[in-house]
């Protein structure tokens, strides 16, 4: 196991400790609980709160998006594991500014169950909560079972839109509405080239052949659509965008935000080569790239691989994508 860590069991805790030492001006642990992270900067009064939660091992997802114009709080689980309902409940309670809390998280079994318990607990304390689950991964279920789809890097766009809307003083209903609209226009898909290692496991829990690529693999190594022989950047991008546009047709003149996301072990150079291919693909069908993110936005530790996300934009979504956001891990100020 080629990792620079201390005790595997303390991986998540020490990660959060490091983050809080580095960014105490922007982030804090609620009541000293390292699994409950909230903004430590000034929050607009009367703002709707947007929160999330999920397992560790995906930085900057999840807690890296807590900050101005994005998320208000995050419950942090162990590697690839949901935080408990109780942690989520305490996080929701701590991030409630009195104008409603949107729990915006990825569609994973454990997270779903815990958030639904946590929301029950919050409602019992008269906190107005809503839940929206992100299901952007087209590879994880066919179109007629859309509700089973998992979340991947599209989470970042969900938070960008909801976070901007909340900061623009949308009401809870309005934040939910525009977030649902964005999710309807959001699709992602990825490929994995190498597995990753959960520190406590000490070795990969799945393997990918030396000349193979897992098309559609989930960020925890969930099986994808198919195992294929290694493809070039141009073929890979075509496979992903074919599948994405099959599911969500794009027309000449459409404007989109596109993310080329590295899963952790893929050099930035390769992501730009993939962006070049995506640009060519989209140009050929007359679709305009209005905004792009190229880099590591949602990872699986050292997994090599890449995912593409496409968000189809209208004027409202353009404004929300453009709206300035700044967290210690993310900003669109220099983009």
């Amino acid at each position, binding site marked *: 196991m080629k990792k620079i860590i201390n005790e595997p069991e303390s991986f998540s805790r020490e990660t959060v400790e490091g983050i809080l030492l580095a960014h105490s001006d922007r982030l804090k642990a609620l009541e000293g609980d390292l699994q409950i992270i909230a903004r430590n900067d000034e929050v607009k009064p009367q703002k709707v709160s947007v929160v999330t939660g999920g397992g560790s091992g995906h930085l900057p997802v999840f807690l890296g998006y807590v900050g101005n114009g994005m998320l208000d709080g995050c419950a942090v689980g162990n590697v690839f594991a949901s935080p408990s309902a109780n*942690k989520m409940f305490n996080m929701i309670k701590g991030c409630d500014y009195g104008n409603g809390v949107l729990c915006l998280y990825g569609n994973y079994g454990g997270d779903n*169950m815990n958030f639904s318990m946590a929301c029950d607990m919050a409602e019992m304390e008269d906190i107005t909560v809503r839940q929206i689950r992100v299901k952007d991964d087209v590879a994880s279920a066919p179109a007629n079972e859309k509700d089973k789809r998992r979340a991947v890097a599209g989470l970042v766009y969900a938070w960008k839109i909801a976070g901007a809307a909340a900061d623009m003083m949308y009401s809870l209903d309005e934040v939910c509405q525009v977030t649902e609209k964005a999710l309807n226009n959001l699709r992602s898909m990825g490929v994995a080239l190498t597995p990753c290692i959960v520190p406590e496991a000490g070795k990969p829990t799945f393997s990918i052949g030396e000349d193979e690529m897992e098309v559609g693999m989930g960020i925890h190594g969930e099986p994808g659509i198919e195992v294929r022989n290694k493809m070039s950047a141009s073929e890979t991008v075509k496979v992903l965008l074919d599948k994405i546009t099959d599911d969500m047709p794009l027309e000449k003149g459409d404007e989109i935000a596109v993310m080329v996301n590295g899963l952790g072990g893929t050099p930035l150079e390769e992501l730009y080569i993939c962006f070049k291919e995506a640009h060519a693909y989209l140009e050929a069908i007359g679709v305009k790239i209005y905004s792009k993110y190229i880099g590591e936005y949602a990872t699986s530790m050292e997994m090599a691989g890449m995912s593409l996300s496409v968000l189809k934009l209208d004027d409202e979504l353009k404004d929300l994508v453009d709206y300035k956001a700044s967290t210690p891990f993310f900003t669109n100020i220099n983009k």
Partner: protein
Amino acid sequence: MDKLKVNDMKEIFKLISSRMDENRDYLVELDSKAGDGDLGISMSAGFRAVLKSEAMTMESFKRFFMNAGMAINEASPSSLGTIMFMGLLGGAKKIADYEELGSFELGQFFEGWTEAIMTKTGSKAGEKTILDAVLPATESLLSSSNLKDGIRLAYEAAKNGMLSTIEMKAVHGRAAYYQEKSIGLQDGGATVGMLIFQAFNEYING
């Protein structure tokens, strides 16, 4: 033994915890085949947490089960750790003011247990989950006239239910991604369900 008191339930949870420890690696193996392989770890940690929690000082079934559920979920917020929380909370509500449980009352507890899970997660019998062990066991408890027979039959039913998951196709959780490939594998959660009734049976008949 005709009726279970709260203190009996604490003893039974100790036995369940031992079962989970003993079967830790076996559950990991089952969960690895169509999941992430954490089931043995999370169940072992979850029930150990109950034994160290406030639950063990509680004097009513309601508070015992609520605190036990919270402890399992805190220690193991994985799917089954959370489902246990849901189930224990649901069961606790059903038998909130009972002071002792016979076969029928224990059946009511597991009725509340399974209903809560089905309502909250949208799962039902035949979907290769822990329900496939616990639902038939619940039937046995509800239809038996005494605790000893009820538990013996419930344990039998849970075992058969567990085995019946081998031929099922997974619909929920990570296993669902494996689709047809999940057929032929015994569900880890259903195995946990069987182990729970094994512990009950050992305490009562054994």
